[in-house]
């Protein structure tokens, strides 16, 4: 007889703490022209940006909700506060950050990680960045890592105007339009030609305010022959009302350049995570995505890569862990638009405790993508029969001189594997955790050590309480 496993709910105390919203400035909830104009004023937008926001609002009002994916009926944008600012300006020294906010990031380990293993850190609290810093030696190479708002007024203003929401236009979908209207915070990174940033930059997004939305915009331009590893982290305390994250990431990878974008997403389980990420990759360049999705109530997340240059490459490595009350719809999209391009999408997903997991992807090969190859591999693990795991990969091939491979599998933890490990002295709980950790190895081995440890801890937390 097959044994069953019960999995307890998750202990998220590490992330699930909150600060009082004293001395914070928040706009009224909802989305109106007045609110968008107020945000624009608060942020001291240039005229073109104010106009952009209002056009985006118009697109938002005209665009239908998606007729696919998880239900977002519990999200009412009229109840979401789109702008919340704490009573502080962005600082370059942690000692100048207000104590409660600094304490938040201390508990999340950000200043410590900055000292040990990062070339720069940006920390966003609700709608605005509260800290941004880059190591002097990295800045000396000409690397720009700053908030988008101040960069718009400086030397790189024209570059930002040229690239902002060009990869993800507001017309892309309803929540891209929402983002265009109310975006706030995020980072701008420019890595000049030939510069290799050997240690990662990290932005961390913390949403503290109840019933609020976070709409940060990340714009990264890696110029010809340069390389960068960028890490993005996010978390929030849990509330009994919906919070919304509709960020946007736009990545421009120049000729012969390389960009790795790693994310450990651990939003609270009242969060609607409707995030959009897109990269365009030039000739001989490479884009690598590493993505861990653990949090959120509902996620729509499919980083897209446009391989526009000959011999450009993309790899997407992802893990999604859906537990009780979660409906996580994740995956990746790639469009091959030039000769001899290659892509590899490799994902794992785990469903337990009633969690709903959907892997969704699209691979398209346009005319002119001769000599290109694409491979998709997705594996799903079901830990019980009250959960759900769906696989929805799509391929659209319009060029005959290409090779496209796809494989997917869904299954449970093998009884033989558990028995083998238990016969060597492990408890069933440990055996299951070990197998799940091994199952997720594709992602953890791609992360810097500290983050791999954090991810493994998250998995251990998720698995804790498995009993025979």
């Amino acid at each position, binding site marked *: 007889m*097959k044994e069953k496993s019960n999995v307890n709910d998750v202990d998220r105390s590490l992330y699930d703490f909150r600060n009082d919203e004293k001395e914070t400035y928040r706009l009224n909830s909802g989305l109106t022209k007045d609110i968008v104009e107020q945000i624009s004023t608060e942020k001291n937008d240039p005229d073109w940006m104010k106009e952009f926001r209002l056009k985006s609002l118009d697109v938002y009002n005209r665009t239908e909700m*998606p*007729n*696919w*994916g998880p239900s977002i009926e519990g999200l009412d944008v009229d109840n979401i506060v789109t702008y919340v600012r704490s009573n502080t300006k962005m600082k370059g020294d942690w000692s100048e950050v207000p104590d409660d906010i600094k304490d938040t990031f201390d508990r999340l380990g950000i200043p410590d990680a900055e000292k040990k293993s990062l070339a720069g850190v940006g920390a966003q609290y609700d709608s605005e960045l509260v800290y941004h810093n880059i190591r002097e030696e990295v800045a000396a190479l000409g690397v720009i890592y700053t908030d988008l708002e101040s960069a718009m007024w400086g030397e790189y203003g024209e570059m930002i105007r040229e690239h902002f929401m060009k990869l993800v236009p507001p017309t892309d979908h309803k929540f891209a339009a929402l983002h265009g209207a109310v975006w706030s915070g995020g980072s701008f990174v420019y890595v000049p030609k030939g510069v290799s940033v050997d240690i990662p930059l990290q932005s961390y997004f913390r949403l503290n305010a109840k019933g609020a939305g976070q709409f940060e915009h990340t714009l990264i331009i890696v110029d010809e022959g340069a390389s960068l590893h960028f890490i993005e982290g996010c978390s929030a305390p849990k509330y009994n009302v919906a919070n919304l994250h509709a960020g946007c990431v736009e990545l421009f990878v120049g000729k012969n350049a390389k960009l790795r974008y790693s994310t450990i997403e651990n939003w609270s389980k009242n969060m609607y995570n409707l995030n959009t990420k897109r990269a365009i990759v030039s000739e001989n360049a490479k884009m690598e995505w590493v993505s861990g999705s653990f949090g959120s109530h509902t996620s729509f997340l499919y980083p897209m890569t446009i391989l526009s240059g000959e011999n450009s490459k993309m790899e997407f490595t992802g893990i999604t862990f859906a537990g009780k009350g979660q409906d996580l719809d994740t995956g990746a999209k790639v469009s091959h638009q030039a000769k001899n391009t290659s892509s590899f999408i490799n994902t794992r997903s785990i469903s337990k405790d009633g969690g709903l997991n959907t892997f*969704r992807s*699209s691979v398209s090969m346009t*005319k002119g993508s001769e000599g290109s190859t694409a491979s998709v591999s997705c594996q*799903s693990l*079901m*830990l*019980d*029969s009250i*959960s*759900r*795991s*769906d*696989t*929805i*990969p*799509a*391929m*659209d*091939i*319009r*060029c*005959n*001189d*290409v*090779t*496209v*491979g*796809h*494989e*997917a*599998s*869904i*299954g*449970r933890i093998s009884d033989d594997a558990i028995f083998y490990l238990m016969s060597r002295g492990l408890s069933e709980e440990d055996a299951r955790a070990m197998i799940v950790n091994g199952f997720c190895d594709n992602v953890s081995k791609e992360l810097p050590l500290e983050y791999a440890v954090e991810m493994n801890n998250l998995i251990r937390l998720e698995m804790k309480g498995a009993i025979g």
Partner: protein
Amino acid sequence: MTTDINTTINRIPVNTYRWLKMNEANVKWSTINSECKIDVDGNHSFVDASSSHMDDVISGVGTTCEAISSTFNGKTLELSSDNEKSSIVKVSIFSSNSKSSYCPIDVLVKTGCTMTVFMDYNCESNSDDSDDMLYVKTRFILEENATLNLIQSQVMSDPSSLINDVGGICNEKSVFNLKQLFPGQKQTYSGCNVDLLGKESEANVDIAYHVYSKQVNDMNYIINHIGKNSNCSINVNGVLRDDAYKLFRGTIDFKNGSSGSVGHEVEKVILLGKDSVNKTIPLILCAEEDVVGNHGASIGRLDESTLLYFASRGIGEQEAGNILALGMINALCDKINDEELTHRISSYVERKLQNEY
């Protein structure tokens, strides 16, 4: 032929991105304005459509297709194994010249019986230019321990169009084997929905197709695992040439309670046309822990080693494509135990290839 009905058919059970235009097929069709000729060799009867016991059977093309069949007032062909342990029925369906016709067929295989049904679709006029529209809907119920081998093939004219719809229910330990050959015509819309209701029931689907010129082949296959220890396999092999368009939707759906079930889906597509469009969406939906489901797809042109092999024997790329297209059809024909039918299909494809290439 003029078309006056616009409808969407072949909807996948779970939608995906709208911009892919893969969630369903938009079809333009003509109101049914003719009866098709049906030759049947084997035990059968014709009954009023209203007396069908299979109205609850869900088909792959979907209920939206009733927009086309709603005006039909003819009879339903009913095939039943009765109590024959093993029976064979051959059904030849002839579409009307440049007209739109509909043919509903119900198949009941009783407990412990095995039934083999050959169905071939032809143009009555035998003309290469007739733009007939034929809609065939086959529903079946398999009782306990029953087996249905359903073989469907079309040898219609190039300008003709076909909607081929299949739906059925498999009770305990019953087996449904479907083999379909689509050697190419202007439009082919095919759908199949099988509910593996009983424990240890099984469905095996094998499809071979060849799509060329500006032809369309749009497919939607859904296997629902409901009973415990049910099994399914879906194997799809095809060749695309010229400006051909093909979309394959294949769904294996493990419902809660289908523990111990296994489903496999494999698709292989050879792309020979520079302007052909190949779309594939293989879904696995899973609400049960103790199942094994997998799918794989391989899409591409003839690889260098295959081309070299042919070249070393004096065979060029075009001819190599012909050989492979014929090979895919013949490989499935080899699994069909009817020499006359397989010879006819093989010759039909060979003739097409000679004429076209």
